[in-house]
């Protein structure tokens, strides 16, 4: 019995020490990690609205479940972060619309589809196609990368639905 108590005490002491160490590390790193996250989001938003200085996250309603976040670039438009199921893995991308409903920016954040086929939607070729589109005339699928681009097109359609509720266009 005495043995069990001493063993339990030893383990408890070890766990408490571990907790203390991690609390220390966490108090140093937590604010930096938070800053990094904000900086990373800002950097990608800047790619879509290069001249905007102020971004704010906005609340929105989305029935499709595909749109994760919406950011407003003050006086310029909205950027929507969308997640869809691609050919192999989920695809996350950002699409930006200006206040006239023209697509102004498109950036694939994460993708893991077949190299040379589905991965092509991360290339400039598809980005140019998307940027040429607008709310009334959405983009078409990319020949040779049908499954992945069709998924993205569906995501863009969901983004348009959300965009229409936000912007008076």
């Amino acid at each position, binding site marked *: 019995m005495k043995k069990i108590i001493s063993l339990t005490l030893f*383990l408890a002491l070890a766990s408490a020490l571990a907790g203390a160490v991690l609390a220390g590390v966490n108090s140093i790193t937590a604010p930096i*990690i938070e800053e990094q996250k904000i900086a990373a989001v800002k950097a990608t938003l800047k790619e879509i609205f290069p001249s905007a200085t102020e971004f704010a996250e906005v609340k929105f309603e989305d029935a499709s479940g595909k749109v994760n976040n919406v950011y407003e670039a003050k006086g310029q438009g909205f950027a929507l972060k969308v997640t869809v199921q691609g050919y192999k893995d989920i695809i996350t991308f950002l699409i930006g619309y200006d206040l006239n409903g023209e697509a102004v920016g498109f950036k694939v954040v994460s993708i893991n589809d077949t190299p040379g086929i589905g991965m092509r939607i991360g290339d400039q070729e598809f980005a140019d196609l998307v940027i040429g589109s607008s709310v009334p005339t959405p983009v078409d699928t990319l020949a040779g990368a049908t499954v992945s681009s069709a998924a993205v097109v569906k995501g863009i359609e969901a983004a348009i639905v959300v965009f229409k509720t936000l912007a008076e266009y």
Partner: protein
Amino acid sequence: MKTLGNFLLNLLKENPVFGLYLGICSTLAITTNLDNAIGMGVSVLIVLTISNIMISSIRKITPDEIRIPVYIIVIATLTKAIELLIKAFAPTIDAALGVYLPLIVVNCIILGRAEAYASKNNIWKSTLDGLNMGLAYTLSLAAMSIIRQILADGVLSLNNPFNSTLIFEINIIPAEYRIAIFKEPIGAFLTFAFLAAGVAAIQNATAKKAEVK
């Protein structure tokens, strides 16, 4: 010079990855490029060395019955600390390694060395063992990632993990001759199989030599 030769020989004969098959999950998963391999290798090196030091220094007061849970607590604490530090100071590495970073806890090399070596030897020896094993692990990861990156991307490059600036980049294979499949799981398994077979062949050859003598 002799110690370096010994180190290289041991690297081939008692390689923790290709010889003993320890920690192969992460080896297969993250060796798509040199950046990830170095990031993962160095993280393991740090966790392994510090865990060896700590476990060796508490080896006399740790009750035998609960030594494994205590080791696990030590290793998990170190891993989480490294994970938090990498998240804060090298976010690109964190994004690339993802969930494989906390999975360092179950990397058999670390618990294996704690149980087999650090719990029986003094601090100085355990530190050297940790550095030695960690370096062997890092070099194994680097070897595998160099092969995969060159075959799949045709380039060999290294970025500074703290500010993601390019350190060097060499183009080796022109775009039309690259084999993209080496980025995929198939390529990981194949590269690993051939490296392991190579290590086995060397082991067999040295064993035969010893017999002849």
